[in-house]
């Protein structure tokens, strides 16, 4: 049984001071339902993805209240919370439900509300993506690791600081063309000297912003998809792998979990990524985007800063860097953007057969890949 995406909807990624998570989700779900032609009563499963509902919203299992708010009654509702990769895990679960024949129509909803508190509170919450008993209590934060890895990458491959920031420059250029992106302005190499440092050499310009947002995807089986009046996209496969703790890695500049997941996904499905494949990868920090396209074997190691110029379909939505990172929703935004790209809705025109979304927790601690294909 194949899994198809026949509807998707997202809110603008922003600091939504005037909307709570239920309002954001309502907007995304309404768009996804309208897009798919399905009705609330058609949905069998509601799979909710969010990373920090208890820390930020004081809410355990928000799926119950989301279902109530959306007017679902007969639906099976559940919450998937798996840190930064929650959205990918939720899609894997939905995919499994459909492939197994247990469900034919699954609504996957991702959201995060990161602007509820001042940044010192939110930074503390976000640091929970690392291991509390190792990094958390020692005050090692996510950008500290990005700083270590950036320094090591520059030293090992002789890459300049100005070359690294080119990733962010490209992401901002893409975000300007993406209506739902958060940071819709361009930056330049000159901006780097004025940028506030977070953890030397990581600055605000290297990092994702704090984001609110909600995204919804409608996953259905083939027979439901055949009735849809627009060309659906198939969710072909999901693969993942877990890396060693960063302090046990021999090479900080190699994302081996992403690489291992890619090798398995690639051989199982007989696909290979090239510079012309649409990919949507996690770039919480610019260095992570660069290392990911190397781990996915699109670019040779140490070459990503040059090779990315040859990738016209790299993070067309602006990446986490500029589209933003509403954590639990981010992988759903990625799939939504790839679907728009493959169905001719996006600003970029793409005629490739496949595309790939990549999500990961921290610096490749837990990497997930989602393979999409045009469905004929």
């Amino acid at each position, binding site marked *: 049984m194949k899994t198809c995406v026949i509807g998707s909807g997202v809110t603008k990624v922003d*600091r939504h*001071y*005037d909307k709570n998570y239920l309002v954001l989700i309502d907007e995304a779900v309404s768009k996804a339902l309208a897009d798919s032609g399905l009705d609330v009563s058609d949905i069998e499963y509601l799979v909710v993805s969010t990373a920090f509902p208890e820390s930020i919203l004081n809410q355990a299992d928000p799926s119950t209240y989301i279902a109530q708010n959306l007017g679902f009654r007969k639906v099976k509702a559940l919450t998937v919370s798996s840190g930064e990769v929650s959205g990918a895990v939720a899609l894997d679960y939905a995919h499994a439900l459909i492939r197994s024949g247990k469900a034919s129509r699954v609504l996957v909803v991702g959201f995060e509300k990161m*602007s509820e508190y*001042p*940044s010192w509170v939110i930074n503390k919450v976000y640091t929970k993506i690392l291991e509390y008993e190792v990094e958390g209590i020692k005050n090692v934060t996510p950008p500290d690791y990005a700083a270590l890895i950036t320094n090591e990458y520059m030293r090992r491959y002789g890459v300049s600081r100005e070359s690294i920031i080119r990733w962010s420059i490209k992401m901002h250029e893409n975000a300007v063309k993406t209506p739902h992106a958060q940071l819709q302005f361009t930056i330049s190499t000159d901006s780097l000297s*004025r*940028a*506030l*440092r977070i953890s030397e050499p990581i600055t605000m310009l290297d990092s994702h912003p704090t984001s609110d947002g909600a995204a919804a995807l409608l996953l259905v089986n083939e027979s439901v998809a055949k009735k849809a009046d627009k060309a659906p996209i198939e969710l072909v496969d999901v693969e993942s792998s877990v890396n060693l703790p960063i302090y046990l890695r021999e090479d900080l500049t190699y994302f081996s979990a992403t690489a291992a997941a890619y090798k398995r996904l690639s051989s199982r499905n007989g696909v290979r990524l090239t510079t012309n494949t649409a990919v949507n990868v996690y770039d919480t920090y610019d260095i992570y985007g660069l290392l990911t396209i190397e781990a996915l074997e699109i670019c040779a190691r140490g070459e990503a800063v040059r090779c990315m110029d040859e990738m016209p379909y790299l993070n067309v939505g602006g990446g986490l860097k500029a589209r933003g990172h509403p954590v639990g929703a981010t992988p759903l935004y990625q799939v939504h953007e790839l679907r728009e790209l493959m169905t001719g809705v996006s600003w970029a025109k793409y005629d490739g057969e496949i595309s790939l979304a990549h999500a990961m927790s921290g610096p490749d601690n837990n990497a997930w890949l989602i393979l999409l294909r045009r469905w004929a």
Partner: protein
Amino acid sequence: MTSSRFRVGIVGWGAYIPAYRIKAKEIARQWGFDDRVTDSIWIEEKAVAGADEDTVTMGWYAAKSALLRAGVNPGDIGAVFVGTESKPYAVKPSSTIIADALGISTKKLSTDLEFACRAGSEGIRISVSLVESGTVRYGLAIGSDTAQANPGDVLELTASSGAAAYLVGPADESVAVFENLVTYVTDTPDFWRRDGSKYPAHGEGFTGEPAYFHHIVSAVKMLMDESGLKPSDFDYAVFHQPNGKFPLQVGRMLGFPREKVLPGIVTPWIGNTYNASALLGLAKILENSKPGQRILVAPFGSGAGADAISVLVTEKVLERVGRAPTVEELMARKKYISYAEYAKFRNLIHRNLW
């Protein structure tokens, strides 16, 4: 609501800025901030009230200057308002201390007003109404603060001390007459201090777009809609200035060219004096203005509200500038202190007194 066209004006004004200054970069270094944070919001240094200064002493000085400039009999002042969020007494008015020290009549209205950084301008609005209605001949509105900031909070880079005072009275005695006054107020929790809490808290980015920018833009647009005035009709625009960057940004949003906004910006060199912030900017403009010029002043207070006031300068301004210290003279009078001295003056060091 528009009111007071040409019937009420500013009869006198005064300013006070403490002599002590601390460099913003010294505060940044103290807490391990990135040095560039001071450039990103444009703050060079801030004024620090000495150990023997507070809202009352500073407010008195500014009010004394306003009375000197106005040359009126203190006995004719029928209302005294002090807008502040740093009252020396939690219960007991500051306005009564200042009024008595100035020899103002006992037959008067007198109260302290609280609305974060715009209580002083609310004092002006109330005074305008009192004068216009004939209830009082003159009303004195003072904005004065020794602004608090949690040590190590980004607010500490800017929160400073200072005062401004405006004597409001009949238009024919005024250095500038009020043309239009409007106020835009909502319940927006961008910045607050709970009872019993030593320092204010704030919502970071929330203090910007939905608070400062939304309220000032709304108030100024309301004034323009009601009056038919356009940015090109104004010679200067003065906005509340929590830092140097925000007033330039809000000016841009409203279509005011940089050269009309820059002359009224004082915060980068004295910090954010809270209730005196926009009012010191207005004082500096008045001291350099020519008769016939039109000034827009738009104070903002968290919580949140913004006023938009347009005034027309009269020829009387010229003879009154020199009667008391000007903002520029007070800005130039400065003595640099260390973070330790600043901490001592602002009572940030906890010690047993005996």
